[in-house]
């Protein structure tokens, strides 16, 4: 519950969500100018999910992310400067410019990587969790995946494996209603993704993904259970993405004003601010201060990213193998 979170934690939550939002809004703007290379999938609108979940995690807990990975990275503590530089293809990037938006990773922070393969993270997270279990750590491993990914064999296999091995793993289905242009109503053969949990002998929980507090609480319970050896959970977070599948998507498959209505009624940042200021936990001034700091941070990250050097030709052939 909101009341359980200290002021510092509330500020942290807001800062994380705001950072993600600004990071993505800025990429949206910069992509339009043609300066940003490659495929870019933005997380704007879904901030409460990554934030509410990752606030429970330390750096030895692992997460596996998706093609839409910026939010998970930021929430797990990956350096924003490095991320921006990476997306701009610079040598100073998190992956030295070799990965780009779809492959940002920082294993030293338990961030196993965004992933260009839909469903790719499911098995990997089982492995991270297996290692935790065999090494007798009380860490947890979280697999983020989308509604589209929920139909991929790798995710099903991972769900089964997690229960068979009683792993400290949480499967977070971020259901934003679409896989590219395809509705989850079409692609998912049952009503809710969480309904699939029983097929894999684990609890299934549905949570409102616009509500940071609801996500935080549901995730907390699942993570607590996992840390205590209680096994995996399937957590379905219902939310929406504000931008297209990737930058450039015209979104003709969506209802007119669909996004506008959601933003208006449910935006996670707006509802969070309303709630914490209404309850007297934080002031608008405190939030505005964060807004300003985040804006400056993002501005600085872009400034640096633009001026940072590209990888050198010699970098092409390194980092393929540890040895030879």
């Amino acid at each position, binding site marked *: 519950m909101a009341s359980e979170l200290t002021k510092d934690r509330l500020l942290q939550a807001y800062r994380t969500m705001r950072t993600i939002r600004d990071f993505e809004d800025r990429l949206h703007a910069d992509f339009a100018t043609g300066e940003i290379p490659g495929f870019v999938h933005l997380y704007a609108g879904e901030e409460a999910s990554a934030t509410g979940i990752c606030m429970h995690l330390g750096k030895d807990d692992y997460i596996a992310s998706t093609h839409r990975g910026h939010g998970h990275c930021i929430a797990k503590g990956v350096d924003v400067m490095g991320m921006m530089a990476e997306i701009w293809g610079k*040598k100073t990037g998190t992956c030295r410019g070799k990965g*780009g938006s779809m492959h940002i990773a920082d294993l030293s922070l338990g961030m196993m990587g965004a992933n260009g393969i839909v469903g790719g993270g499911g098995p990997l997270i089982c492995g991270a969790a297996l290692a935790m279990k065999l090494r007798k750590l009380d860490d947890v491993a979280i697999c983020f995946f989308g509604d589209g990914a929920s139909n991929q*064999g790798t995710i099903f296999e991972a769900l089964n494996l997690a229960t068979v091995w009683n792993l400290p793993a949480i499967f977070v289905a971020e259901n934003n209603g679409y896989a590219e242009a395809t509705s989850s109503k079409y692609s998912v053969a049952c009503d809710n993704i969480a309904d699939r949990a029983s097929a894999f002998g684990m609890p299934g929980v549905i949570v409102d993904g616009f509500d940071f507090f609801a996500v935080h609480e549901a995730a907390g319970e699942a993570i607590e259970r996992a840390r205590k050896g209680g096994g995996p959970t399937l957590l379905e977070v219902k939310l929406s993405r504000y931008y297209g599948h990737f930058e450039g998507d015209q979104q003709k498959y969506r209802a007119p004003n669909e996004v506008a209505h959601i933003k208006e009624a449910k935006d996670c940042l707006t509802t969070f601010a309303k709630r914490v200021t209404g309850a007297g936990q934080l002031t608008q001034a405190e939030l505005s201060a964060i807004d300003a700091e985040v804006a400056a941070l993002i501005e600085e990250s872009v400034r640096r990213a633009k001026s940072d050097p590209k990888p050198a030709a010699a970098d092409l052939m390194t980092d393929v193998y540890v040895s030879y």
Partner: protein
Amino acid sequence: MARKITYQQAINEALAQEMARDSSVIVMGEDNHGGEGSPGEQDAWGGVLGVTKGLYHKFPGRVIDTPISESGFIGAAIGAATNGLRPVAELMFVDFMGVCFDQIFNQAAKFRYMFGGKAETPVVIRTMYGAGFRAAAQHSQCLYSLFTHIPGLKVVMPATPYDAKGMLIQAIRDNDPVIFMEHKMLYTLEGEVPEESYTVPFGEANVVREGDDITVVTLGRMVHLADQAAQAMQKNGVHVEVIDLRTTSPLDEATVLESVERTGRLVVVDESNPRCSMASDIAGLVAQKAFGALKAPIEQVTAPHVPPPFSDALEDIYIPTVADIQGAIGRVMEFRR
């Protein structure tokens, strides 16, 4: 002069003409029309880059969006091919083959042999390959050598709009499983394409440019780079023969061998990683069957043995360049025993 359309339009036209001709032809894949189950437009995407756009309205019920489960729907296309349909399934990026390869190489490719010749599996798997899009390691690979290694598959790599149309029509009419490789950087390439339906047969390489000094064997997008390199070399008085393999399986050995018998020199240009590649395949073929004619080492121009990098600074040197090809041609021409 005939009409010019893009590679992408040529593919779309081939699909439309075959669907009109034969009601057993269906198209399926992720967002092949796009918008299924959604509140907005159907045919909202027409494939991730719009290649199948418009077919949905022309052929009601025959352009099918799929969940993201490549084993499931590629396997379904294969199964449907054993029961009277001629499906054209789209594997969006060839890089995703790893989640569905079994259905392709252990099922479709082997049915006929395992079943003693009593099966036909007329399925086409269209897929997008190649670097240049700044799409990084999991969306920029070539991987055609993996399919070429597998007996029972045909592997088709059109380099031009003309071939894209004619070879896709051939693929659809063909009674064997066909992997149809579309280079993402070629979609916007324009070329002359007849409006009427036609086929380009498999196993017949295309001599893009004739020359007697040296043979360059290549395929896919590299055909254009090789041709540019050849054109540049012409100015130095080097007459380069450029051969576009067009299909890697079946392979037109005769055209390659005949050319090298004549020129005595060979460069193979292949965008993929080098090990166990088409470059090595062709080099090995010639070193066995046209050795007597060879006057110089066979040079292979390929991407290096590293995954495709993201940054343009790296990707631009990862992909073989015209200069790389010219360099190889130059070295081979200069070789003296």
